[in-house]
């Protein structure tokens, strides 16, 4: 899976949890989930669980703590996939 494919797959997940007033076009690599995309911590957990299913990986509490931006998420996904 290329980086672009992972990014698109992640965006498909994120878009489910965006608040009504945030459009998917607002999502960029450097977007902060909570402060910029207005995703709350409860929804962020659901994003992580969906990411686990979609990429067949498992994230730990430390990964969750590091996952502030879309780029952080992509890095974590890439690392986990590489370690498989």
């Amino acid at each position: 899976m290329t980086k672009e494919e992972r990014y698109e797959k992640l965006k498909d997940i994120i878009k489910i949890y965006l608040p009504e007033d945030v459009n998917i076009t607002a999502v960029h690599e450097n977007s902060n989930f909570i402060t910029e995309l207005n995703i709350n911590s409860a929804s962020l957990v659901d994003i992580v669980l969906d990411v686990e299913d979609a990429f067949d990986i498992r994230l730990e509490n430390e990964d969750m703590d590091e996952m502030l931006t879309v780029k952080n998420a992509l890095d974590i996904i890439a690392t986990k996939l590489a370690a498989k």
Partner: protein
Amino acid sequence: MNKEQILEFLPYAKPFLFVDELLGVDDKGAEGRFTFYATMDCYTGHFKEYPVTPGVLLTECCAQIGLVCLGIYLLKGEKNLNKMKIGMSSSQMEFLKPVLPNETVRVVSKKIYFRFQKLKCDVRMYDAKGEMVCKGILAGMLTTNADE
């Protein structure tokens, strides 16, 4: 941690405590009961002519037994349990039967997941006859981490 100890950690008091007794709890779920006593303030206005327990209070009862009691059990061993912070993050309920003053209900909760401090449960409430009065999916965040 036993059932009585869990109740001591509950961060509620009258008039907003909706757990009388915990009937059972394990890693997979919790079960408890509560009697909606007839002197509760809400009955004077819900409704003006005939008292019926508001759905939000049925939901709250499901959440206190199904999410919070279970959450305390799942967090057993955490040293800051007395400083636990909680918040309901989502509720999706269906109400099937009215609950009248003095009715005792039983709530059965089954854990869907507890990950990254989020507890999501399938909850069901039954009346004294064993008939279902409401059911739904509730989720909340529970943390004992002081800086969050």
